[in-house]
């Protein structure tokens, strides 16, 4: 895909984040969509391309009253929205549509109008994972951690520092769910969820949503907000079964998606001013830093523990507070994208001064899928 041909011209989250007991999941989609439409200065009738995940595109498009000429229902977990951005950029360039709306919403906490996720007994997961006691992401996502720690020499304290540093960012964000400072001792003394991970190393469970609007860079100049250009993109999938990952030392999907995006963007790691790595659990930023090529995996734990990713550090990471402290409705990728867009617009609560390039990396399922979007505010 060519660089900087498509831009984000509308971006918004739901009016409220956290616990939203008065809205169903589809209404959260609509709330985010209407906020994004307003942000872009558009009408819903201007939208001719639509993408969403979990819910089908037809369900949300009809609820919103949109009749698109292009749809994408890619649903590969929490990074689905990174893939939507990539696919939408290609579709706009190909002339299949002009103005794309991407929505995410999840009533993850209040569970209103949300279908439970179930694993059929005759699926491969149902036969070869479910009988051994996996029960939701906390019991599955951390399964690779002990092997990763042993291979790369990562310590429990370093993995605790991920949560500590992200709370420092969250403290600067009025919309963050958890803002009170925490220490490594707080993390290591919090309730055990699935050894080696404790409560403060697991993502929040909240309600919310977000929406993005993309159009061609040429049209983007006429919109009220500063355009945020798509500089590079990547995607991949590996396996829906965490036990069947090729290795626990890294993520194959990360190692495909990340470098693809860097190559397309034509940038090096030194060019990155701002970084988002989807942190459903505390090990993900370490996998991301290694698999995206910022440094060898062996150095990732020390890099974070030494404060390089904290406010004022040389590589600001997860500046909204992340899934650990900002919010996590179940598919957090949309919120990582929103924070990258805010940083590129220069309006983030914890704004990185003069940030020009933002890398936004997402995971889907338990390392099942991955999407990377690189944004810039300079064309």
């Amino acid at each position: 895909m060519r660089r900087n041909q498509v831009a984000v011209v509308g971006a918004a989250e739901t009016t409220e984040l956290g616990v939203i007991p008065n809205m169903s999941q589809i209404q959260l989609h609509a709330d985010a969509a209407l906020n994004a439409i307003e942000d872009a200065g558009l009408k819903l009738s201007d939208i001719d391309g639509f993408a969403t995940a979990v819910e089908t595109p037809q369900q949300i498009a009809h609820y919103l009253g949109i009749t698109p000429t292009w749809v994408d229902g890619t649903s590969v977990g929490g990074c689905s929205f990174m893939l939507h951005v990539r696919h939408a950029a290609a579709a706009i360039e190909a002339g299949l549509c002009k103005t794309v709306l991407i929505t995410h919403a999840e009533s993850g906490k209040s569970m209103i109008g949300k279908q439970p996720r179930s694993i059929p007994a005759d699926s491969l997961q149902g036969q070869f994972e479910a009988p051994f006691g996996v029960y939701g992401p906390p019991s599955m996502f951390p399964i690779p951690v002990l092997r990763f720690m042993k291979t790369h020499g990562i310590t429990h304290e370093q993995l605790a520092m991920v949560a500590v540093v992200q709370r420092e960012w969250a403290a600067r964000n009025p919309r963050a769910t958890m803002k009170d400072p925490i220490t490594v001792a707080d993390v290591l003394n919090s309730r055990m969820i699935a050894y080696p991970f404790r409560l403060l190393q697991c993502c929040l469970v909240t309600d919310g949503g977000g929406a993005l609007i993309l159009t061609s860079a040429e049209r983007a100049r006429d919109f009220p907000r500063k355009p945020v250009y798509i500089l590079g993109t990547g995607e991949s999938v590996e396996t829906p079964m965490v036990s069947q990952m090729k290795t626990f030392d890294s993520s194959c999907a990360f190692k495909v998606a990340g470098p693809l995006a860097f190559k397309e963007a034509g940038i090096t790691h030194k060019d990155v001013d701002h970084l988002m790595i989807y942190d459903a659990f505390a090990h993900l930023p370490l996998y991301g830093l290694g698999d995206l090529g910022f440094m060898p995996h062996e150095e990732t734990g020390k890099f974070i523990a030494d404060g390089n990713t904290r406010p004022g550090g040389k590589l600001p990471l997860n500046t909204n507070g992340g899934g650990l402290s900002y919010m996590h409705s179940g598919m957090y990728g949309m919120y990582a994208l929103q924070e990258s867009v805010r940083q590129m617009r220069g309006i983030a609560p914890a704004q990185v001064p003069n940030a020009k390039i933002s890398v936004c990396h997402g995971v889907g399922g338990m390392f099942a899928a991955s999407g990377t979007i690189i944004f810039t505010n300079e064309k």
Partner: protein
Amino acid sequence: MAEAARAKPKPTPETQHFWDGTKAGELRLQRCDACANVYFPPRPFCPSCASRKVSMFKASGRGRLYSYVINHRPAAPGFTPPYAIAVVELDEGPRMMSNVIDCPQTPEALELDMRLEVAFEPLDDKITLPLFRPAKG
């Protein structure tokens, strides 16, 4: 009221031989006749070279502890926390999820790379699960 039961696998035509094997006290894997790749989970073709000529064989049932979590909450139906969910690397190469029995469910007892051997646990008259215990000797 009966206690909630552990999730029970439902075999498909492609996996039936595996579950027939565990019932018969064998851990069955598949090997590609063309490229010798050994793979899991079961399927009637090689995921490495796409050959449909594959053969089933009885695996050694031996392996090592590749990684695990000790799950505290929420517990799956049929499990009493804390319990370990393990990934075992078989000597033949493939990895599979399982549980480690006859061993304290603690970080001290569950040492990465410890040797394990298969143990068969019947759930009912149709399904027997392949679990693992610390290898003897």
